């Protein structure tokens, strides 16, 4: 599996660290325990296409949003996820 980093070009996946599913959004401070439980622990665990966060620690140290098929490992798109952490916190 090679990930085409928009900044560094195609690199083997050993250069990247995995955060996981890009879908869960950190709930706001008033969202309640149930929403936090859902965010921290529950996963769709998709078999098929999934958007996920990868970190290019062995290269440009950018966060990337990758759309990938978890059954075939085929990668459809890679884009910079600048401020991904902040975006998660904001929404």
């Amino acid at each position: 599996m090679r990930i085409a980093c928009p900044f560094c070009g195609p690199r083997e996946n050993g250069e990247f660290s995995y955060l996981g599913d890009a879908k869960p959004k950190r709930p706001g401070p008033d969202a309640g325990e149930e929403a936090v439980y859902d965010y921290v622990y529950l996963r769709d665990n998709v078999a098929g296409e999934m958007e996920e966060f990868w970190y290019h620690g062995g290269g440009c140290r950018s966060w990337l949003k990758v759309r990938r098929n978890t059954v075939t490992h085929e990668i459809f798109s890679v884009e910079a996820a600048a401020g991904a952490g902040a975006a998660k916190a904001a929404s």
Partner: protein
Amino acid sequence: MKYSIFSLARAALSGHKKWPRTWRDAEPKPRYDVVIIGGGGHGLATAYHLAAEYGIRNVAVLEKGWIGSGNAGRNTTIIRSNYLLPGNIGFYELSMKLWETMERDLNYNTMVSQRGVLNLYHSDAQRDAYARRGNAMRINGIDAELLDRTAVRKMVPFLNFDNARFPIEGGLLQRRGGTARHDAVVWGYAHAADRLGVDIIQNCEVTGFVRDAGGRVTGVETSRGKIGAGKVGMAVAGSSSRVAAMADLRLPIESHVLQAFVSEGIKPLIPNVITFGAGHFYVSQSDKGGLVFGGDIDGYNSYAQRGNLPVVEDVCEGGMALMPIIGRVRLLRQWGGIMDMSMDGSPIIDRTPVDGLYLNAGWCYGGFKATPASGLVFAHLLARDEPHKEATRFRLDRFRRGAMIDEKGQGAQPNLH
């Protein structure tokens, strides 16, 4: 049939051409008291214990492919009970005890070999951590010995003791640990469960749940038709989220791929199971001579039963750091299995919020050693509707309650467990 010296002699007289089937190839009946989804080690062990200990014999095990085609046939065959935390420690020791009597219980040679599991330590701090683990084991009545460098060298002299970065200082040894023949465990449970009347139905994929007006699960839709059930147990680790989704459940689980490897056969070299303490590498030698080894999961969500090369490289580097002697041994095969990585690294054996549906999941990459105890406690849960005393902490709601069993202390990041 019961295997014995007499059955062997009888079969020998007919040139071994008249051995009966090890289990019946059953056709699905319209209804069972209990339907187990998943014909791996855990599902078959559950069916066996339901029939043998709890008197529930109207049981079917449904398997999408052939029994043992998933993780039961893809692991590195290691058995051990060297855990630290309450909840795990008693459960895995129960499993170890069941391994010790398994061949007599099942009337099947599962080649359980208590050759010892040796966890190496490479620093003073790691020695202290292993001493703590060993003490936790011993106060729970489990065998553990802390070996110094001299004792380890005597046992496995071929290791690289003087690695400049990670010298081997000693090891924590569990002599009762070892290996078992993974396929034979599947066949043994199938054989024993079948003798007690359990139907093992292969090539039967569950495609949905049948539910009544109150939402209770009353059966399953399968590729071979509808099958009614008093209770349904899921033992489909690797695919738990997919099956649970058919009942509108989301689980605290991610599916990840773990690779395993076997080398070409060589003469007897490794007398036990050895784990490298400075990387992630574990190795034993099969009776055919191949070195069976593995390391970390690949680290990304995957349902593909194959991994990628960076982990192959990482595992082989670990092997070379530990025992450079294997440098010219050729790799014969590598493969991948799909792990139910739970949010705390420990399993889930519990009722689900859906009536009539029971869950056995989240085995991370430690499911094989747990096979017999997993079957026993899941059978207990299905039969009695309450957890077995050694499985009271494996509850589904423990994440909500903050009662995690996190051996590695990694938190809710499944790819780090």
